[in-house]
């Protein structure tokens, strides 16, 4: 992470934020700790989606399916087996990545809206399984009181656990996006045909991108269970996929940190406006209209343009 100039500055900003987040729980009410943890989980989901949407240019329209697979795998393993927590924790993301491989394998053969349609239908199949298979998944009730290990029972401990996993995942995703793999993924987003002509196996590259993104979605799913101790079919429902997509657009889908902003806004809206009215999506709708007219690159896209650095997280500084 040690890089010249503005990157070093962003590194210190991130480090400072992390320190503040580490010392917050004792001084703020428990409820806010919970909200923050919830924002981390949602952010991780949104960022994993943005890897393939913002950086990969893929129409990943049913990302929540993989979030749900991660959560259900973790929940099922903890409830139905006596496997140690660590195994379940790793199995969640791996199951999500496998689902990503399976669905992605078909989807990368198509482009754009066809890709999106196929993914929505295949993802909905997963939802249908979770929704209907009562004996295993508890059907539309889901599963509650999932026995997460005792050291995660207190909400403060869960907060720290989620914060640490979230930070590690963020760092990994950052490294991946800055690697030749991530760079090539962005090149494919910009121009798949040209990429093919420089010798890149575009489909395989996209598929690997999907597997990585769905893996992190699985991690987010596991963290959701750590926080909420429950799973339910809504986790795999397409409406959630749409919400996550909006988070990316809202925050700025060509920026790395944008989806976190988007997730924070959505979670806060749902929580705080949701207290007064169940129609909090009305406010979201108005926000979106403003977004489309005034900030087409999202909030972070706007900010980084104002700060003079280009909205593309790129290789500008490569030669310096």
């Amino acid at each position, binding site marked *: 992470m040690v890089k010249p100039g503005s990157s070093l500055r962003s590194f210190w900003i991130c480090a400072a934020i992390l320190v503040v987040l580490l010392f917050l729980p004792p001084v703020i009410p428990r409820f806010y700790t919970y909200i923050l943890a919830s924002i981390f989980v949602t952010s991780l989901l949104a960022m994993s989606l943005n890897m393939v949407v913002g950086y990969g240019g893929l129409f990943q329209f049913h990302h929540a399916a993989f979030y749900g697979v991660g959560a259900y795998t973790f929940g099922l393993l903890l409830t139905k087996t006596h496997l140690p927590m660590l195994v379940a924790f790793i199995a969640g993301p791996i199951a999500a990545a496998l689902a990503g491989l399976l669905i992605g394998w078909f989807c990368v053969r198509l482009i754009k809206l066809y890709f999106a349609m196929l993914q929505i239908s295949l993802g909905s199949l997963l939802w249908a399984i979770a929704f209907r298979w009562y004996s295993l998944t508890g059907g539309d009730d889901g599963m509650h009181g999932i026995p997460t290990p005792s050291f995660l029972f207190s909400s403060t401990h869960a907060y720290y656990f989620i914060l640490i996993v979230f930070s590690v995942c963020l760092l990994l995703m950052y490294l991946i996006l800055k690697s030749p793999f991530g760079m090539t993924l962005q090149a494919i987003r910009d*121009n798949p*045909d040209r990429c093919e*002509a420089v010798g890149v196996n575009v489909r395989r590259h996209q598929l690997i991108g999907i597997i990585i993104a769905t893996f992190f979605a699985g991690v987010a799913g596991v963290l959701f269970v750590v926080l909420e101790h429950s799973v339910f079919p809504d986790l795999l429902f397409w409406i959630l996929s749409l919400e996550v997509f909006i988070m990316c657009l809202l925050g700025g889908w060509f920026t790395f940190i944008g989806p976190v902003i988007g997730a924070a806004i959505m979670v806060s809206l749902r929580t705080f406006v949701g207290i007064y009215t169940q129609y909090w999506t009305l406010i979201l709708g108005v926000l979106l209209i403003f977004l489309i007219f005034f900030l087409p690159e999202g909030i972070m896209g706007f900010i980084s343009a104002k700060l003079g650095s280009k909205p593309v997280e790129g*290789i500008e500084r490569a030669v310096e």
Partner: protein
Amino acid sequence: MLRVENIYKSFGNFLAVSGAQLTVGRGELVAVIGPNGAGKTTLFNLITGQLKPDRGKVVFKEEDITRLSTHLICRKGIARSFQIANVFPRMTVFGNVQVSVLSQQRQSNSLFRPAYTMAVKETEEILESVGLIEKAHELAGSLSHGDQRILEIAIALGNEPELLILDEPTAGMSPEETRITMDLVRRLAETKGLTILFCEHDMDVVFNVAQSIMVMHHGRTIVQGAPDEVRRNEQVQEAYLGDEDA
């Protein structure tokens, strides 16, 4: 080095390429000419695998590459530019070329090494040789049309090709830009020993630069030979020079 044997391609009822033939020897600078719609671009797309021919064969270095997919053909040593500017607009000029160098070095799937330390020297050399080094940090999408076309060539060079295919490298350029680009093409052929196949509208350009010219008309090859030979060919005068050379 490259041999296209009697190749056919139709789109619906329209025969875009019907029996084209082409030979490119190592180190040669070969031009394909022909009126609009003669099938030049389609022929290039057939060679580099963007399209698959209905019939016929493409042989590169004595190996049949007809059915290979685009990225594999590229790895055999054929790189190309496109007729319409075809760059990665949201990436920097440097990144545009770097992507192709990384692909050439088989590093595209490397996951945890920072890309900004990799392939820097090679990329700089290429940008230097085409004269874009000053603009290395600009976004490709913000370049002028002429510079984007040159960047296209630079991207192709990143693959260290043996055969470089340029689809109308000077399309839409001012006369000054055209001169600079063709000088560049000639220089690349000389200094890097590249074999270059290109198609072009501008007759002066073609007869000045090319060592061998293939003339296409209605998807067929009329003749391929040295510039003088082609100039004298009656069929060519009838089909092409006659009605186009206004």
